[in-house]
């Protein structure tokens, strides 16, 4: 069943799928050929290249069936929480409760890409006054209005305060359309003052104890709402178990990232790795299955590393990537021009770090929420990127700006400045729209220039 690692097109996957099926491929209920997703409207798949392993097939099928699985969960009587913005905290609480699942409505920001602008979501957002000066997360408004994607959640939460203005404004617009939202506050994380009690957070950040206590109280409000929704108490024991389960996912992902970033030959493509990382933020609506999917991908990576095989050339340039891309194609492009991913920070590193298990669960969740790279100074975020880039041996950094995102432009400058001064690495900033076909040549040129710069530096 195993073939040498290779990136293949959708057409090649048709052949590969037939071959795997004839060899007795066993799939979960949501499995099937990738081609069927195109029939359902995910047209972008026609332009992408994919890893050729059964593990990657399972990963893609898991990702692309999320809406189906959410509708199925609703039919099974499960309660659904739409957790907006916090990217990793509320879902840990939600999955700890009986028969409750959570997903990120903000994940709709990939709909315009995956469905190649074939839906009405952005047009609806335009009509609601949320135009192109906002980030692609505005597609979420269209998804709520049409109800054609995810089921309307039973409970909507949104973290606000030191979060991005785009999402806060769009969520308020959603609220104005009649969707009730439980707003909870995440304050700007500041450095503890002298003589102020400090708490160490995941990701090596610190915060004053009083800020942690504040967030803990805010999360208690969310906990009360989850309990009301579940019609059952959400005990510390359940939360502790929820944290343990989340940490199993995070440890698996951590191991996968380590394998990919440090291997002599890159074992898993950038695109599949980015999708794998995304599973951590809300388990793609199924916590147990997400662990199984990730375990498969990690095992595949391990096999390839042991065999000394991979999907990129041995001399591929080791790139650290900052921010998620609105068009998934950009991750393919990086490898097409001779790069490979060796480090990433997609704005949710707090969803990858292990949640502390040695403190009471609500304290642990509060610490995790405050470790969100977005809620602190851009300088803190840059510091973490530098640490990781150094640890993974990155040779250059790509900062991918999110179109319309009000925080990105300045943050990008700060991060680029810190990287240049601390690491002396070349940095390139790019902006990737939801469908990047029109700027493909420009993107390619910029990434090629970065790769060539690194190769020249190697010769010195």
């Amino acid at each position, binding site marked *: 069943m195993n073939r040498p690692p290779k990136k293949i097109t959708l057409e090649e996957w048709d052949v590969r799928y037939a071959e795997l099926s004839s060899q007795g491929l066993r799939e979960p209920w949501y499995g099937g050929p990738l081609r069927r997703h195109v029939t359902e409207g995910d047209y972008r798949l026609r332009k992408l290249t994919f890893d050729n392993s059964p593990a990657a097939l399972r990963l893609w099928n898991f990702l692309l069936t999320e809406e189906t699985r959410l509708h199925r969960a609703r039919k099974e009587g499960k309660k659904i929480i739409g957790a907006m913005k916090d990217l990793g905290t509320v879902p840990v609480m939600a999955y700890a409760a009986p028969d409750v699942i959570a997903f990120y409505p903000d994940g709709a920001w990939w709909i315009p890409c995956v469905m190649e602008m074939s839906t009405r979501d952005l047009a609806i957002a335009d009509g609601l006054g949320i135009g192109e000066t906002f980030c692609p997360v505005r597609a979420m408004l269209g998804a709520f209005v049409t109800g054609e994607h995810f089921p309307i959640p039973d409970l909507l939460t949104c973290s606000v305060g030191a979060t991005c203005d785009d999402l806060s404004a769009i969520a308020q617009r959603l609220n104005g359309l009649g969707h009730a939202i439980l707003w909870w506050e995440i304050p700007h994380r500041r450095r503890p003052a002298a003589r102020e009690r400090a708490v160490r957070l995941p990701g090596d950040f610190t915060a004053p104890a009083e800020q942690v206590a*504040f967030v803990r109280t805010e999360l208690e409000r969310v906990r009360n709402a989850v309990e009301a929704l579940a019609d059952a108490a959400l005990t510390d024991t359940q939360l502790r178990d929820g944290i343990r389960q989340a940490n199993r996912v995070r440890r698996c992902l951590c191991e996968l990232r380590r394998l990919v970033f440090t291997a002599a030959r890159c074992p898993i493509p950038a695109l599949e790795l980015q999708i794998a990382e995304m599973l951590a933020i809300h388990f793609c609506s199924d916590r147990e299955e997400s662990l199984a999917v990730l375990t498969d991908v990690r095992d595949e990576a391990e096999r390839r590393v042991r065999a000394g095989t991979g999907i990129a050339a041995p001399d591929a340039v080791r790139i650290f990537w900052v921010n998620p891309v609105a068009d998934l194609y950009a991750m393919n492009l990086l490898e097409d021009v001779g790069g490979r991913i060796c480090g990433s920070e997609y704005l949710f590193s707090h969803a990858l770090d292990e949640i502390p298990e040695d403190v009471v669960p609500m304290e642990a969740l509060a610490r995790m929420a405050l470790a969100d790279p977005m809620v602190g*100074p*851009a300088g803190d975020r840059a510091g973490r990127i530098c640490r990781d880039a150094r640890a993974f041996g990155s040779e250059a950094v790509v900062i991918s700006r999110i179109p319309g995102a009000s925080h990105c432009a300045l943050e990008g400058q700060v991060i680029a400045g810190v990287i240049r001064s601390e690491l002396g690495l070349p940095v390139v900033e790019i902006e990737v729209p939801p469908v990047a076909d029109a700027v493909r040549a420009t993107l390619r040129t910029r990434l090629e220039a970065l790769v060539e710069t690194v190769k020249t530096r190697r010769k010195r």
Partner: protein
Amino acid sequence: MTTVLYSSPFVPPEWIAAHGHRPERVVPGAGGEASPVITGVCPYLRAFVQHVRTQPRVGAVVLVTSCDQMRRGHEILGAESRVPAFLMNVPSTWQSANAQRLYLAELTRLGRFLVNLGGRPPSDKRLVQVMLEFESRRAALNEQAYRPGKAARGVPLALVAGPLLREDLALFEIVERHGGRIVLDGSEGGERTLPAPFDRRQIRADPRLALAESYFNAIPDPFRRPNGPFYQWLKTMLAERGVRGILFQHYLWCDKWHAELARLREWTPLPVLDLECGDDPAGTRARTENRVQAFLEMLT
């Protein structure tokens, strides 16, 4: 006495003054290019940072977390280290006791910052005295500014906006030149953001709490979540002042104000004129004048 600059209406000047400093609310001019150049920020933040950089005898600056841009502004100014900069967490949420406690705690933290600048923590008596002085002065100014005489003429308009640049103040003249009159100033520097009168019982029992409540619980602003009180305030004031049209101004890249435009249009039966301010104040002004003129022609 140290001059402490600030911009947000959620920073109580009484608190700064009670610590022995001079509060100065900034209305920056767009001016020319900021130096060193700042890119990737809204026109207001660029002007604000440039103002702080260029003012002589500035002792400190206080910014708040009401938007991404001002948060980043604190980073810019903090990195330059020319002027001590304080970032005050003003919660977006307001319905929980926890949010109110955070605001109060942030006032206390601001107090420590002001003491480090050479100020003195105020006694309750001193704080009450300063609060009442400021309240009295505000009341006198409001009487003049927001109670136009019966003789006032022109189509009554409301201005709904975030913070204004000095150049934006010309809007008042432009409106009058074309036959209108701004009878409701809902901009960030206007009557919308005035604190509530201090609770006389509370001020005796706990002046800090009275101060916090008058600011945090009373100022309606689009950045708050949910922001229903902003619309409740508008509903009352538009009716009270007999407003016939709304001028809505927002800056390019200001998501929180921009997102309210369509909602405001859905919400009100009054005509709403969108005045978007870009990076070029001169170009913006010419366009604004034309648009206001046409708007008023329609309403006349």
